[in-house]
């Protein structure tokens, strides 16, 4: 098989995968924070918060990520003027599209994080929360000090699946022109269609290498940190 395209200066494969990694890391952090907040809202004593989080999760979990990211660019940014970078900057389009993609990924992925954490809350025995209330802790402390630490340790494995899905989902950013791996592969298979299989294998290997360690490390952590009951 002919892998000569690897040294072709037109194709910055490392650079493209670096963008994929950046999208993944930033969106993962954002989704973890917003997803935890959504889970907390769904179990809170405030009905408006519960209702908001439920509606939010049901809407965005059932919308294709492609619809979310394309709308972020065409509707939010181009049409309604919601921009995430300085318009004077020379790299405005590039930065804005990257950030809009991250924004869309967070909007979507946080619903899965939220549901995972909520199912983790279900694995915590009721006695834990009852004991916490019995010593006089208010709801926020019951959740933050007693329930969530145990819940998150129980759902590291499902969260790892969400993170792996997120890594693969970053390819959807190609739909708004973010120069990540899928967009580069699209260009390359178009130009080098005689080396189609080789190009595909390189990119497939890239994603296997990105997702494999995540699964292994978090799988190990999930076993290490599981709450023994």
């Amino acid at each position, binding site marked *: 098989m002919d892998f000569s395209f690897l040294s072709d200066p037109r194709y910055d494969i490392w650079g493209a995968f670096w963008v994929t990694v950046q999208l993944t890391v930033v969106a993962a952090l954002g989704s973890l924070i917003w997803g935890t907040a959504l889970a907390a809202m769904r*179990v809170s004593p405030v009905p408006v918060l519960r209702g908001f989080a439920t509606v939010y999760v049901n809407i965005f979990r*059932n919308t294709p*990520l492609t619809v979310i990211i394309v709308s972020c660019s065409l*509707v939010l940014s181009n049409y309604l003027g919601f921009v995430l970078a300085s318009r004077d900057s020379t790299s405005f389009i590039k930065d804005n599209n990257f950030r809009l993609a991250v924004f869309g990924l967070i909007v979507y992925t946080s619903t899965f994080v939220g549901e995972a954490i909520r199912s983790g809350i279900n694995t915590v025995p009721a006695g834990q929360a009852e004991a916490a209330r019995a010593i006089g802790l208010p709801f926020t402390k019951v959740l933050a000090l007693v329930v969530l630490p145990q819940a998150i340790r129980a759902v590291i494995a499902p969260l790892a699946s969400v993170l792996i*899905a997120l890594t693969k989902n970053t390819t959807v950013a190609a739909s708004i022109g973010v120069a990540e791996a899928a967009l580069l592969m699209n260009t390359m298979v178009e130009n080098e269609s005689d080396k189609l299989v080789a190009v595909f294998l390189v990119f497939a290997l890239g994603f296997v290498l990105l997702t494999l360690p995540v699964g292994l490390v978090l799988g190990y952590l999930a076993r290490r940190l599981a709450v023994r009951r």
Partner: protein
Amino acid sequence: MSVLYDVPGPRARRRNLVFNVVFAVVLVAVAVWVLRTLDDKGVLNRAQWEPFTRGDTWTQFVLPGLRNTLKAAGLAMVIALPIGVLFGVARLSEHRPLRWAAGAVVEFFRAIPVLLMMVFASVLFTKYSTVPLGNVPLIATVTGLVLYNGSVLAEVFRAGVLALPRGQTEAGLAVGLRKGQLMRSVLLPQATTTMLPTIVSQLVVVLKDTALGGLLLINFVELLRTADGIKNNYGNVVPSYIVIAAIYIALNFAVSQIARLLELRLRRGPRASLAGPTDQMTPTLPGGTAATGAGIGPGFGGVA
């Protein structure tokens, strides 16, 4: 009543009321701001929405797109199910080479974004097959969906079989069934039943992933792509995306609800829980598989 907080007393009730009001005000403020922005841009004008009151917008753009989306999702699911059964069973085989080969294939296709597989299939069929060019977009989309979801379903069937009590296998062997018979008439039917909610929620993943077919080289005119036609004709960007997103949400929400009802029916005996029913009640998939590391429950498919 949740066990996470006490029955509110007078002070807590007052505080919750304050939170309720504050948050409701924030939500209303955001809604007002969004509506005003939309109004400033003329999105709320009757002219922007008028195309959707006319039949030809639907028969020319939306419905053909929806038909393509449903066709791709349906084909993908129908092809992926038997492939999933085949590979799931192969991964449980007593023959090590078969088990490993099936495992390698499943893990490989689960680790790769669906979009890459669709792009690959698109070029493959265009350049190296005699498939009529007009059919390539549909076939490429379905190929990508089948490769990924076949692998996921293989894991689902395997998890279903592994979750069955050992006694089922032992009883089957005791009455003299051969391995194939045991799998066909004892294990698979039960595994399919317990995993039915997961299988149905996988359909949501497939439906959402059909939207990838409109991207890059693949060029499949599914529901999302029809937005291009509508907005080019009528210049109504925002209403087009709102209507199309609403169709996806309604469709997927309905399928999710079916999965949830199946789940509730299959679950025996109510179980006390802190946060109410969630998607995580069917047996999770066996952990430790290389590329994905951990089990996936329904709802964890993600897009790519």
